[in-house]
């Protein structure tokens, strides 16, 4: 369609360029830093992420395309560029103390983290199978290394290896699916695929199988059932900030890719894949919540919790294809949920990272008496947990609310899925409250020792708490974000 020799629109990819420049800079800076000052690469990385944020902000309202239309900048792209820049800044802030105390591969850590974020940032604009694939791999590959960064710990090695093997397998399946789609539709561009699938190809079994394969690849990325079992082991073994990264940014990137794929590319065959997502969603949320009930270790519990949350985010996909207004509602509800989930989950992980300095394995019992030891942090933690359970007046409630609204608007299967999700919210409350109970309700046996958290961690937790409560009371602030752009309107 568009000749490939068009000049590259550098403004459109400015955030990604800044990010890419920064990560090389980090690598070089690290080379020249003396061993005891390696932690200084964090501010460099942080400034770079801030630069990427500013670059993304300059693109607000833009409608650009480059690389012959494979990379598009619209409201959706800008929203997630901003989102991932902010997430990068947050994760960097949370990592600082943790990585510095660990004294291992600090420069490499920040380099790999930014690499992975670069992948996440290219995801939002990818309107082409190849671009999506590259983005997804750019997110995943550094993450394998990050999970295995605690080289001396066998669990960290296990985390990385498991993550790597399952990822490679699912990538292979996905790539196969993509090649089949190219074979059937003759294009890798999402818009073109959509056009082709709307035609007679819609009922070709090959096309449907291809869609299924691609979905499987992304299901791994967002840790959906039955591709979820790497998540708990990987989260547990990886450094805690990496677990935070995986559960928030990497998962969000998976969903961003999935949204574009399903709503921009495969929408014409929604009648085929929507029921698959209904099953995926149901199994994922039930499995995540029921297993989370039995966890004693906080990071593992949060891993299962994030699987369950992925189940909630998969639900709107099951609603697609019934009408344009339902499509729009479903699409927006996922976007909104990602934004809200990121804030509350990052907040939770911030506190867990802070607690892990005192007790590296972070059991639920380690939270005992936190209500006396550091009341502000305990209140923040309780806010995040209540928000994750979806109780007003917190942001998490609105995340769920808009999914419910889309589901009930859909009617039929949507109503039943909403019912299942409602049940799951109640189940999830049990294990979220387990931490709340430890913080306040459990009798304190030993004298109260104040606990100190790294300043950056405290700041992140407080900002996240304010955000979660602010959105909880004035959801209008967030309701404007989800743009159901040209992207999802389809051809």
């Amino acid at each position, binding site marked *: 369609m568009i000749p490939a020799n068009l000049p590259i629109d550098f403004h459109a990819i400015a955030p990604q360029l800044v990010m890419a420049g920064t990560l090389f800079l980090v690598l070089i800076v690290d080379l020249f830093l003396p061993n005891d000052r390696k932690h200084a690469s964090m501010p460099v990385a942080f400034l770079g992420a801030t630069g990427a944020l500013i670059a993304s902000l300059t693109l607000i309202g833009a409608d650009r395309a480059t690389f012959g239309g494979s990379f598009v900048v619209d409201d959706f792209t800008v929203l997630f560029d901003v989102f991932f820049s902010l997430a990068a800044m947050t994760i960097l802030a949370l990592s600082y103390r943790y990585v510095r105390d660990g004294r291992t591969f600090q420069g490499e850590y920040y380099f790999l983290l930014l690499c992975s974020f670069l992948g996440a940032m290219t995801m939002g604009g990818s309107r082409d199978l190849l671009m999506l694939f590259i983005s997804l791999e750019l997110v995943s590959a550094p993450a394998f290394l990050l999970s295995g960064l605690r080289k001396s710990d066998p669990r960290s090695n296990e985390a990385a290896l498991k993550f790597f093997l399952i990822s490679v397998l699912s990538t292979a399946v996905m790539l196969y699916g993509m090649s089949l789609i190219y074979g059937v539709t003759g294009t890798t561009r999402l818009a073109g695929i959509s056009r082709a699938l709307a035609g007679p190809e819609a009922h070709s079994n090959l096309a449907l199988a291809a869609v299924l394969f691609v979905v499987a690849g992304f299901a791994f990325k967002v840790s959906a059932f039955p591709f979820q079992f790497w998540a708990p082991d990987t989260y547990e073994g990886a450094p805690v900030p990496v677990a935070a990264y995986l559960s928030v940014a990497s998962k969000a990137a998976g969903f961003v890719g999935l949204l574009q794929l399903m709503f921009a590319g495969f929408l014409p065959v929604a009648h085929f894949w929507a029921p698959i997502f209904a099953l995926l969603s149901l199994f994922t949320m039930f499995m995540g919540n029921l297993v989370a009930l039995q966890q004693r270790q906080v990071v593992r519990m949060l891993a299962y919790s994030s699987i369950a949350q992925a189940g909630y985010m998969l639900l709107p996909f099951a609603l697609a294809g019934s009408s344009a207004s339902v499509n729009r509602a479903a699409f927006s509800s996922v976007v909104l949920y990602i934004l809200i989930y990121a804030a509350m989950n990052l907040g939770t992980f911030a506190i867990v990272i802070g607690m892990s300095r005192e007790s590296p394995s972070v059991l639920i019992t380690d939270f005992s008496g936190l209500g006396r030891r550091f009341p502000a942090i305990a209140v923040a933690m309780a806010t995040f947990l209540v928000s994750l359970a979806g109780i007003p007046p917190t942001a998490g409630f609105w995340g769920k609310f808009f999914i419910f609204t889309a589901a009930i608007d859909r009617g039929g299967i949507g109503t039943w899925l909403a019912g299942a999700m409602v049940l799951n919210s109640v189940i999830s409350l*049990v294990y979220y409250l387990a931490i709340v109970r430890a913080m306040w309700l459990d009798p304190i046996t030993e004298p109260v020792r104040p606990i100190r958290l790294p300043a950056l961690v405290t700041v992140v937790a407080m900002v996240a708490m304010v955000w979660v409560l602010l959105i909880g009371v004035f959801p*209008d602030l967030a309701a404007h974000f989800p743009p159901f752009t040209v992207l999802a309107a389809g051809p």
Partner: protein
Amino acid sequence: MSGWDTWALTLAVFLPAAGAVLIAVVPSKDDRTPRVLALVFSGAALAVGIAMLFGFDYGAAGFQFTVNASWISAIHATYHIGTDGISLPLLELTLLLSFLCAVYSYRILPSPGRPRAFLALMLLLETGMAGTFVALDLILFFVFWELVLVPMYFMIGVWGSSNRQYAAIKFFLYTLFGSVFMLLGFIAMYVKSLPHTFDIVALQHQAAVAPFARNVQLLIFAGIFLGFAVKVPLWPFHTWLPDAHTEAPTVGSVLLAGILLKMGGYGFIRIALPILPDAAKVWAPIIAILATIAIVYAALACLAQSDLKRLIAFSSVGHMGFVMLGIATLSAVGINAAIFGMVAHGIITGMLFFEIGSIYDRYHTRQIAELGGGMLLKVPLLGFVFAFTAIASMGLPGLAGFWGEVLSLFSAYAPASEHIALFRTLMVFGGIGTILTAGYILWTIQRVAMGTVPQARVDEPVADVTRIEWLAWVPMLAGILILGLIPRLVTGVTNDAVTVLTRVFIR
């Protein structure tokens, strides 16, 4: 005056929340500051409430003191609040009871103390409860409704008695379970309404002009029924209540029994009946049967209790059964009776929980057998107050408990439902329930207040009612007497609004 009209309700609802925030952030070395702040802010909210009583137009049936500001444009949810004859008595009850709890807490706090946290939660709870009664937007209603869960969870879980953790989580899970289905019902109302709206007033208008299809109504009613029935609680959804009420600290029990339960009954009257009239007609006999089972079951359960607090907790199930029976008749008399019953039960049972708290503080037991009787001799004033309130709870004519029960039974004689024979049968069973109620109340009074002081307690120094207790209790005791003598104080307020509301059900 217009400024006052628009701000009064918002002030009454959010003053306590502001107080809660202030208590939480103001550093205080001594324990006095939070108590004073709680007193000031709940007192100010009550003052606003009392001032509203004078500005309220009792002749009008519509909503007054309304505010309708935009809130969530994406779903057309608004900050729409207002009060009418139905919600005003319950709002005033909330403000009064919360203030009296603040008075009581000025001196008496449950172990492990920590007044800042306790009072901040109590005020937050007040905002949630008051907001529920004035919200005219389903989403706003839901947010206030859920706002009470977290403070009450902590109140039971931290300050409760021995089995508190179990009771706290049970309370939270049960209520959440009901209310999430209620939320789905609300969303379904939004989706089915044209134009889409969460506004209760607009939905009521739509119901009058073009009601939802019957099947849709039945399904939505099922969802919101679950939410309200758990809260009321209606048999067989009541099992969280005895645990929560028994384990909660005194103030928690007072607010639970006095106000929280009323949110469920109010929800039926405000939302379920007017918006889903056809479904209400279908569901009414079912609700009436469950309500009557609750009455009889609770009375029998009370006869079997050995723990005084648990006994009163079960008696709440029975009293709310009368309320629900009144609502299920769908008649003006029945709903008036229900609102009166809720107000009366709020004062009487709230008062009983206060007294049990004070008895426990003195005797360190709630077991009727261990109390051993003779309270009228040992602590005559406390014994008298307890006997007085218990008799009011029994429904003695001349005291507040009488009107709610008797009007509810009357209304079952002439329900607006076509199942007249059923309702009249239920009336008979309800009557048997009142006899059983009289039985367990009198037996309890006999075992606790009358008789001689047991040998072990003769020399035990036990203080009679203290000054702070009198301060908290006298308004309630007076209320029991005044409402019993002049029931028009409530029914006069409610009747016009109720008559309008029940017009659709008149055959």
